[in-house]
């Protein structure tokens, strides 16, 4: 298996139903001889999973026979939820996590302020009811918000668009 294929199969520690490739944080895998340089980008500046991701990539590539593994970070271009693949979105939904919509496109000028939580329709991943409400903009991790469905009464997580 190529180094790129090995790296792409490593699971994300926070959202283990996704691979790093599904999440879109795997930016490059460069092989030379028995060495590999993997480049990843953090979802958020303070993402505490980065160290674990680095270790998991190193372990997987060593197990696949690559003696020298280096994991680098790039900050730019900044990660966006638009990089979550179609397969990744299906896996999130199957796990009861609402996948993100398109990331907001900004017009020129100051960043717009949101005084009322988004009323954009986010459907319930449990029962499919199209109108759900936000409980909190932050959840167990910075990348997810907490919502609830008024029909089936179930709370669920939604991957925030950034």
């Amino acid at each position, binding site marked *: 298996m190529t180094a790129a294929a090995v790296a792409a199969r490593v699971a994300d520690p926070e959202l283990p139903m996704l691979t790093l490739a599904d999440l879109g944080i795997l930016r490059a895998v460069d092989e030379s001889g028995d060495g590999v340089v993997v*480049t990843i980008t*953090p979802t*958020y*500046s*303070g*993402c*505490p999973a*980065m*160290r674990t991701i*680095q270790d998991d990539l190193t372990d997987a590539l060593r197990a696949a026979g690559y003696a020298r593994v280096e*994991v*680098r*970070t*790039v*900050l*730019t*271009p*900044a*990660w*966006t939820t638009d990089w979550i693949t179609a397969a990744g979105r299906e896996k999130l939904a199957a796990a009861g996590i609402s996948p993100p919509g398109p990331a907001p496109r900004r017009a020129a000028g*100051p*960043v717009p*302020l*949101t*005084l*009322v*939580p988004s009323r954009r329709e986010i459907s319930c991943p449990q029962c499919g009811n199209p109108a759900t409400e936000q*409980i*909190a*903009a*932050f*959840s*167990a*991790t*910075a990348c997810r918000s*907490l919502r609830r469905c008024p029909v089936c009464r179930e709370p669920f997580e939604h991957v*925030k668009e*950034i």
Partner: protein
Amino acid sequence: MSFDAAYEALTDHDDDARWAYGTGFADPLAGVDDTVPDGVDRGELAAYCLMLGDDALIMSHRLQQWVTRAPELEDELALANIALDLLGQARLLLTRAAEVEDAGRDEDALAYLRDAADFRNVRLVERADADFAHLVARLLVFATWRLALLDRLTTSADPVLAAIGAKGVKEVTYHRDYAAQWVVRLGDGTELSHDRMQAAADEVMPLVDELFRPHPTELRLVAAAVAVDPSTLRSEFDAVWGQVLTAATLRTVGAAPGASGHPTAGVPVEEAGVPVEETGVPVEETGVPAATGPLAGSGRDGAHTAALTDILAELQSVARSMPGGVW
């Protein structure tokens, strides 16, 4: 490790994962091009990175102190997540400062081994909050200012600052929305919550002017297209602050354009009986300008309140008592 030797485990470890910030990422800028743009003074660039990094570090610590004290579980999560984002920004900025300074210090040394007078954060981030209303007022001020600043930093001639800015804009947008929505909820809530939110909005105003006062280091780096001149952010700040306070049915005295620059915002200048120059800076009977805050000078020059000393005593205690410890 055994439970009998829990403390030994702090230093008895062959992993290089330090307690620093918890992630153990040895270098958050690994693999990022570390070139300093031509014509930029390394000392000035390092000082600027420290300013922005210290703002994030100290604000993050103050937010962490709210965990287990927030009114609802959801707010604990929100504040912890906001604190974590800021800690991430602080790590990147302190690492950049250390790299550019090239004096053998790293992010840990900068965070844990400096004394209060060596910190370059604005005083706004130091303050302990009297209640949740004071917290959300202060967070709204901080996030509104920082978002405007980071947004302009995305075009910095320093590619690392530009990247940190671009990443931070996405994060701080959510921080500002969170704070703004709480200010509206409390201001436009009950009579009691309205009054307490109004008091909190008034009491944060004396800390606002410092945010927009450019430091000589900033101005020199503005000339090199590296830094943002904070005085250019004031109109955006005033617009957002006014928009939120209006939605919250609160008075915006002190932040409205034309009233800015007065440190005792909340009390109209004329009513306070203080003679005012055309600049809006209050003048004492002697004609000497009054100090523009509880202390002369600026946090950017290391002039801090006692609150910073308290924070550092907590933040640095493990690092200083267990040098080189890991877990």
